[in-house]
């Protein structure tokens, strides 16, 4: 077995790819190059910041007429809306105006309507997308997961026995064994690592600790509650384990933002598990093991 490990700065984070297979090193590096190329493509298509990305084009003019997008963008949007519906809007890709107000994203000229939401996004069968009214979407919450899934799909056609693709914590694996994954403790994000195992192939983690910005003296979290428009102030984090990374990515936000009866239903529907860590050291895994206060 040959094993290689590569890392590139992509999607605003460090993307790490580990491959293990009965192929020579040069062949594995070629596969890794191609995989990184796919992630660059996702970045080009779905960046909120790059002017020519599908996302920026949609944000500029999808409210005027339907726009043709790349099939990957189409896929992401369709699945995002599906998860929005399932989570009753707790997960919503159309929250960019609020993020901009708190300076998490660059200001653009488009002026979205304050109450526009995922329900105004229309994903049409011919790979076109339109908005019912001016709207800003940001795929920051799921593009990383989508990119990881695309790479894993590709790797699974290449005879790779074992692979780990980790995009800044959005992670998915191929192969037997349960890789250990470290989850940052929300009370000390710079410091603590709480090891756990992977009960599903993919994991993603969300929490309110990612940044430390203050607006009017209050700490602002980049996770915004779509209903109240207010940022989460809780220090809880949640890791969601799913079969795909994009679902895990989306469900972390859904779990933190929707009522328990909603997210437990969604977790079950998506065959996913959620591991909560509170600031008071409580660790709770849903649903398999029930509640377990450490």
């Amino acid at each position: 077995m040959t094993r290689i490990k590569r890392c590139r700065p992509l999607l605003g984070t460090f993307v790490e790819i580990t491959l293990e297979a009965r192929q020579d090193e040069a062949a594995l590096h070629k596969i890794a190059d191609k995989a990184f190329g796919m992630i660059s493509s996702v970045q080009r298509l779905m960046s909120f910041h790059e002017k020519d990305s599908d996302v920026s084009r949609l944000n500029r003019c999808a409210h005027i007429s339907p726009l043709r997008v790349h099939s990957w963008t189409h896929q992401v949007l369709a699945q995002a809306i599906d998860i929005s519906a399932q989570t009753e809007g707790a997960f919503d890709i159309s929250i960019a105006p609020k993020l901009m107000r708190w300076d998490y994203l660059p200001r653009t000229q488009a002026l979205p309507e304050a109450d526009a939401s995922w329900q105004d996004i229309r994903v049409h069968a011919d790979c076109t997308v339109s908005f019912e009214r001016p709207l800003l979407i940001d795929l920051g919450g799921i593009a990383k997961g989508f990119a990881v899934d695309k790479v894993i799909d590709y790797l699974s056609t290449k005879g790779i026995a074992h692979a780990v693709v980790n995009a800044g914590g959005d992670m998915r694996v191929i192969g037997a064994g349960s890789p250990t994954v470290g989850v940052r403790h929300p009370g000390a994000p710079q410091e603590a690592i709480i090891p756990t195992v992977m009960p599903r192939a993919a994991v993603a983690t969300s929490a309110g600790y990612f940044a430390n910005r203050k607006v009017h003296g209050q700490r602002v979290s980049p996770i915004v509650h779509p209903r109240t428009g207010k940022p989460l102030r809780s220090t809880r984090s949640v890791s969601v384990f799913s079969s795909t990374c994009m679902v895990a990515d989306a469900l972390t936000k859904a779990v933190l933002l929707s009522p328990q009866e909603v997210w437990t239903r969604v977790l079950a529907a998506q065959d996913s598990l959620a591991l909560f860590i509170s600031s008071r050291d409580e660790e709770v895994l849903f649903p398999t093991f029930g509640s377990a206060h450490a």
Partner: protein
Amino acid sequence: MMHRRSIIRVLPATAALLSGLRMAYAETYLTTEQAQRLLFPRESLQAVSVTLTNDQRKAIAKASKVRVREDTLSAWRTSSGGWFLADNVVGKHEFIDFALALTREGTVKGVEIMTYRETYGGEVRHPKWRAQFAGKKASAPLELDNDIKNISGATLSSSHITEGVRRLLQTWDLVLKHL
């Protein structure tokens, strides 16, 4: 690596004693030679000794808006006139070594992280995760033999790499281009 593992093994018994301890972690993805072969597979590379003058450092810092810490460059010129640069930036606490490949025209051909280092501390204060999974089927393989390196939940910012690349692009424009 082994050092860190052995510390974690003694965790349940002596967690209190160890609190405050910091652990270093380094992951080497590529050696300089491997990065050179990957980024310029069909070219020969020639090491070039480059020392920046104070004026050059100031000019690069001004143009890139990034501080220039070092006055020597680890630079190689390729047979097609491109450049391979080995450099580093500070991550959260420690250096991250990276390689930048530039074409003859000074555009970015590729960026590879060569070594990622980080310092962790404080996790020994949280040994309770063990109890949670005790006797649970899905957690049967819970072992710390696998390296704890997949830091889920950390949106590790790569903006310092972006700055480092910007600094090197200005270094090319102001210095390397004219060599």
